[in-house]
């Protein structure tokens, strides 16, 4: 079996070559075995990681039957549970979806704008107090902030963000109340600062000599060249805002203002008779995040790696 791949002459004439060839075949066989074992483990872990999601999808598609049992394929297919999520509750599901979309758009816009702006002077300008500002922010990152939820709740109320005047203004303020506490991202500031530091100083000097203003340099040079990092950060923030539930749940008195994740918990609390509908809701909650994650997967992983190496 091993010698079929080798030239006959080499085998006959040179005993060393023969030995080398045998060793090579042995090594290849061992490598192949090892790879097979690796794939077996990889697949097993993938099953553990993905089956819970698959099970939820399958069960949400079944109209009836034994709800919680382990299954591979649905017994019957129907979209009834999905219709139920949208019609069968007091909380309008499309509204929750819309809330999540608005919160994500606001949140991602705020965090990326603020971080891309603030990182610029810290990376590329010289001014008194720069190191002080930089190290103060560093210290904030290390300081434990367990009272955040409590104090931010008080701050939100004191700022009047939960005041009631007109429906439209109330909604706008409540969205702000959800978004603002996370809008100044220290991690984002560090990521962006790091990205700016990688941009050649000559480019900036040349622009300054040509009389460009700092805002122009920021917009025309820094932003385009830092786009990969900005994209990674924007995806990270999208995931964070889409998934946030606790803060909104604690703070928002109006259930119609909740984002999807928080609304889903509300649903499972009030809707205990129909778990399948809640499962359908869970599937609807996951899908947008999966789409964004898969689209930006490359940036996303890079962004995370960058965050550690910082």
């Amino acid at each position: 079996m091993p010698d079929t791949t080798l030239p006959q002459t080499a085998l006959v004439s040179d005993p060393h070559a023969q030995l080398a060839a045998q060793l090579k075949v042995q090594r290849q066989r061992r490598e192949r075995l090892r790879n097979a074992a690796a794939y077996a483990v990889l697949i097993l872990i993938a099953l553990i990681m993905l089956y819970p999601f698959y099970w939820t999808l399958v069960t949400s598609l079944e109209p009836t039957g034994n709800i919680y049992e382990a299954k591979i394929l649905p017994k019957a297919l129907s979209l009834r549970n999905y219709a139920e999520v949208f019609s069968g509750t007091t909380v309008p599901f499309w509204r929750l979806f819309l809330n999540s979309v608005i919160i994500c758009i606001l949140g991602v816009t705020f965090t990326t704008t603020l971080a891309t702006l603030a990182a610029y002077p810290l990376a590329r300008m010289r001014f008194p107090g720069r190191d002080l500002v930089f190290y103060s922010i560093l210290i904030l990152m290390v300081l434990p902030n367990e009272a955040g939820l409590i104090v931010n709740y008080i701050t939100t109320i004191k700022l009047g963000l939960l005041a009631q005047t007109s429906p439209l203004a109330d909604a706008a303020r409540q969205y702000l109340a959800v978004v603002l506490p996370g809008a100044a991202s220290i991690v984002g500031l560090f990521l962006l600062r790091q990205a700016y530091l990688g941009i050649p100083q000559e480019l900036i000097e040349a622009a300054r000599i040509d009389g460009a203003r700092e805002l122009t340099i920021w917009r025309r040079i820094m932003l385009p060249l830092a786009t990969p990092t900005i994209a990674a950060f924007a995806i990270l923030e999208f995931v964070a805002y889409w998934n946030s539930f606790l803060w909104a749940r604690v703070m928002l008195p109006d259930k119609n203002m909740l984002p999807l994740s928080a609304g889903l918990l509300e649903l499972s609390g009030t809707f205990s008779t129909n778990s399948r509908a809640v499962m359908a809701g869970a599937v609807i909650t996951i899908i947008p995040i999966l789409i964004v994650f898969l689209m930006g997967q490359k940036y996303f992983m890079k962004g995370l790696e960058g965050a550690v190496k910082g």
Partner: protein
Amino acid sequence: MTTKGRRVSRREQHRIGGTGASVTVRNTLIAYAFMLPFLILLVVYHTWPVIFGSYLAFTKYNIISPPQWVGLDNFRELFADEQFWSGLRNSLKYVLVVPVIQVISILVALLVNRPLRGIGFFRTAYYVPVVTSFAVVGLIWSWLYKQGGAVNSILMGLGLMRGDHSLLDNPATALFAVMFVTLWKGIGYYMVLYLAGLQGISRELEEAATIDGATRSQVFWNITLPGLRPTILVCSLLSTISAIKVFEELYVMTPNGYPAGSTYSALMYSFSKAFGGDFNFGLAAAASMVVAVVSILFGLINFRLTKGGRSDA
């Protein structure tokens, strides 16, 4: 990857930045204008909670009337409350998840670091739980743990369980059942961090050792693992601190410490004192402060155990 190398390069970067525009009043104003919106929100939502939270811990406060200084009363009340102690014990028990999650994540990172065909698919698949919210993940797992559910049938099929009772309904197992979900959700996250760490270890060093006759396990223990030490420090710090602060997964899967307070955590205590109806923000802040101090202590222990994350042996 060494801390020393990083420090030098950061100083270098400062120097490069420092040759930028000259220091004028105008430029200084422009610089602060760039940072102003960020700094305002930072102070309101990050600095202020640290300051005001520390102050609140020594007051009675319910939002309606102004805070009243009560000295150490909140802490006395806290330490006399058996419920708080039980929460703190559970939070400390939760740290058990840290070594397990770190060892598995390192093994998985080594596995997906191999140049195999289709490895990108596996890396992505393992990351899906990470990007899913605890609200969703917690709900899914509480269904899987149900009586007659998937987890039970697998455990009974393997002969690991007798009698079909939900692990979440049993005070002896509930906390561990939630811990497993934390583990399941966290592996992908730490895997990516370790993958980044592995890529920072020089290939030449490993190959040179192999040529010199080192076995695979010798290479792992003498080169790969020490090279990963900075990453291990970061990861174990992150996971220890989040274990002590465990809250969201318990909040979704075992509300109010169900069953029988067996999943009550220290932050859950703080949360319920603030938002559970009696708006006792002072006591809640005091409980949070204790959690903060405990996480700092555990952070220091982590530093000792990983020798400050130095990659040299």
